[in-house]
């Protein structure tokens, strides 16, 4: 396998995955990069579970961090192969050779087909493996490997070109407004394209404006797709797993101290946030009652950490160099305009129903290959990335309710038609079946026959409906809504019948009529058509 792939090869690979697997869909991003390249992303998922949540995994935001695009592609490909063949995901053993020559043995690593089936049922997995195609291709040219930014062209001086995309997102972008003077002095973001400190300082140039870069806006647009609740941004190097906030110290007791409160901006009543320079201000992250956003970030980060260790195998030495710290992004420095903080910010002010989680995974270490592992080091970076993803997907999927299965209490077709098992009409149908129909021995026998027939075809039909929006709307309007309306009226009328047994018998009769009449009408229509078209008539 060639490594590292130039951006065009990443796109070719994504197109091949789209063409080869029905549960994989490739979509080009909305905008071309600065140099006219259009990155794309894939979505992997069966799309049938009404409770499913979206997880966006991004890579290649920083040009010189070579491993993530290739590792995300190899993960997606193995996941798709395993799902299609209904087999385990399997990653081969390898030897990791550090640049100084020390070697480490990593064993094979397997993810069960049960996990694979759960993930594609309960999650919509989005992979955007090459956020910064121009930067990547530039970094792969001889002599350019340290290049970090995109290829924004400075209007006057080419040596000042490039924007650090991970300082360009619309969250606390203007540090001279967000922080007080002392706080702004400790921000690891460069505000001047042509900073006299040279490239080492210009590496974190935030850009000429908030979300000024098309590559940034592409990520923002994908983050905004319906259902995406988790964002994993893969970088190098650490080894660290970071969660928000990067803009300030976390605190969970003062909801008024949050990024959008102008009282805490520099022109406001308090004169600006203090960043790492003081403790008067901390960024609010809910961590009480039903919304323990801090704890759930720590838990998910620890799940990734544990799975990376598991993926390292039995060698204590390999485990030693694949042990990650799980920490808040902000440490000595504050960072502004970062993608994880931006994704986190999109749920504020938070509600219990809209929890979003964001992580920056800093893969690898200085001793293992820094930002740009060579071919002899790539497999270790790849394995750590795969471990992190598996840990995250398993933990997230465990928190998602299973979809309908035969024998459950689900109304498959109505759920598909209305888009949620929580819809009031779906709940009405469930209530009729479970609480009214099943309240007598006759009703239970009738329901048993009804469900045996219904479950023989409805899961497949419902799965098909989930994939066809127009058909879903047609079934909702022409079939399910009239049926629910009639059942609702019938139930109201039957409520006047004093005998529960008789009530259930009459309800069973109504249901039989509702099923039999359309089938009878369809049969009559077919018979009439055959009669009309019969040769010789």
């Amino acid at each position, binding site marked *: 396998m060639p*490594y590292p792939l130039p951006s065009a090869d990443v796109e070719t690979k994504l197109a091949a995955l789209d063409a080869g697997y029905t549960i994989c869909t490739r979509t080009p991003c909305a905008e071309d990069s600065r140099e006219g390249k259009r990155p794309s992303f894939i979505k992997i998922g069966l799309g049938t579970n009404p409770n499913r949540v979206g997880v966006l995994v991004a890579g290649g935001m920083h040009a010189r961090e070579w491993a993530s695009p290739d590792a995300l592609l190899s993960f997606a490909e193995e996941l798709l192969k395993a799902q299609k063949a209904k087999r385990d995901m399997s990653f081969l053993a390898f030897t990791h050779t550090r640049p100084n020559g020390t070697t480490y043995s990593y064993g094979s690593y397997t993810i069960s087909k049960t996990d694979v089936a759960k993930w594609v049922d309960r999650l919509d997995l989005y992979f955007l493996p090459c956020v910064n195609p121009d930067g990547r291709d530039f970094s792969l040219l001889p002599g350019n490997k340290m290049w970090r930014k995109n290829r924004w062209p400075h209007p006057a001086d080419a040596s000042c070109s490039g924007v650090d995309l991970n300082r360009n997102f619309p969250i606390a972008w203007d540090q001279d407004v967000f922080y007080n003077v002392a706080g702004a002095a400790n921000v690891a973001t460069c505000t001047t394209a042509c900073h006299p*400190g040279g490239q080492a300082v210009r*590496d974190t140039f935030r850009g000429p404006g908030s979300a000024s870069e098309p590559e940034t806006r592409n990520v923002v647009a994908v983050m905004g797709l319906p259902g995406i609740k988790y964002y994993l941004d893969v970088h190098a190097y650490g080894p660290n797993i970071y969660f928000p906030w990067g803009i300030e110290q976390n605190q969970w007791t003062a909801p008024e101290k949050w990024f959008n409160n102008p009282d805490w901006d520099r022109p406001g009543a308090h004169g600006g946030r203090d960043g790492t320079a003081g403790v008067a201000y901390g960024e609010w992250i809910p961590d009480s009652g039903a919304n323990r956003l801090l704890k759930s970030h720590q838990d998910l980060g620890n799940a990734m950490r544990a799975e990376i260790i598991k993926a390292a195998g039995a060698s204590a030495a390999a485990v030693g160099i694949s042990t990650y710290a799980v920490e808040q992004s902000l440490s000595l*420095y504050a960072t502004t305009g970062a993608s994880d903080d931006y994704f986190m910010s999109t749920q504020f002010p938070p509600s219990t129903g809209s929890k979003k989680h964001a992580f920056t995974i*800093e893969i690898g270490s200085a*001793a293992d290959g820094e930002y740009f592992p060579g071919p002899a080091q*790539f497999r270790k970076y790849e394995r750590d990335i795969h471990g992190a993803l598996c840990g995250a997907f398993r933990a997230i999927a465990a928190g998602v309710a299973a979809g309908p299965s035969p024998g459950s209490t689900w109304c498959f077709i109505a759920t598909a038609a209305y888009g949620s098992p929580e819809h009031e009409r779906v709940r009405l149908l469930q209530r009729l079946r479970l609480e009214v129909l099943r309240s007598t021995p006759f009703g239970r026998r009738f329901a048993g026959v009804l469900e045996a027939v219904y479950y023989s075809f409805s899961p497949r039909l419902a799965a098909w409906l989930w994939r066809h929006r127009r058909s879903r709307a047609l079934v909702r309007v022409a079939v399910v809504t009239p049926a629910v309306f009639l059942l609702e009226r019938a139930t109201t009328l039957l409520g006047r019948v004093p005998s529960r047994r008789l009530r259930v018998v009459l309800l069973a009769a109504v249901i039989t009529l509702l099923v039999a009449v359309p089938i009878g009408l369809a049969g009559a229509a077919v018979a009439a058509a055959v009669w009309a078209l019969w040769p010789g008539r």
Partner: protein
Amino acid sequence: MNLIRIEGSSELLRSLHGIPDLYLALGSLRMLGDDRAEIWARAETGAIQQVEALGCAVDVEMDDTALQAHDDAVEHEIQQNRGTV
């Protein structure tokens, strides 16, 4: 360019940002306890002297020659063989 590990107090390490030719790897920062921290970086010799002058301890993990040789080897492999793994 050298690959270096820098150790010092939080306050000292905080003052490193902005030194010319010091490419700090922010993701590598680790707190060591007792208000000590370490961070990795690539740095030119002049930048190392500035870091040491501030009071930080610097370990050179790969000097200019070794790092250049490693960079050249990786680059050669990438360019010649498309980095087969």
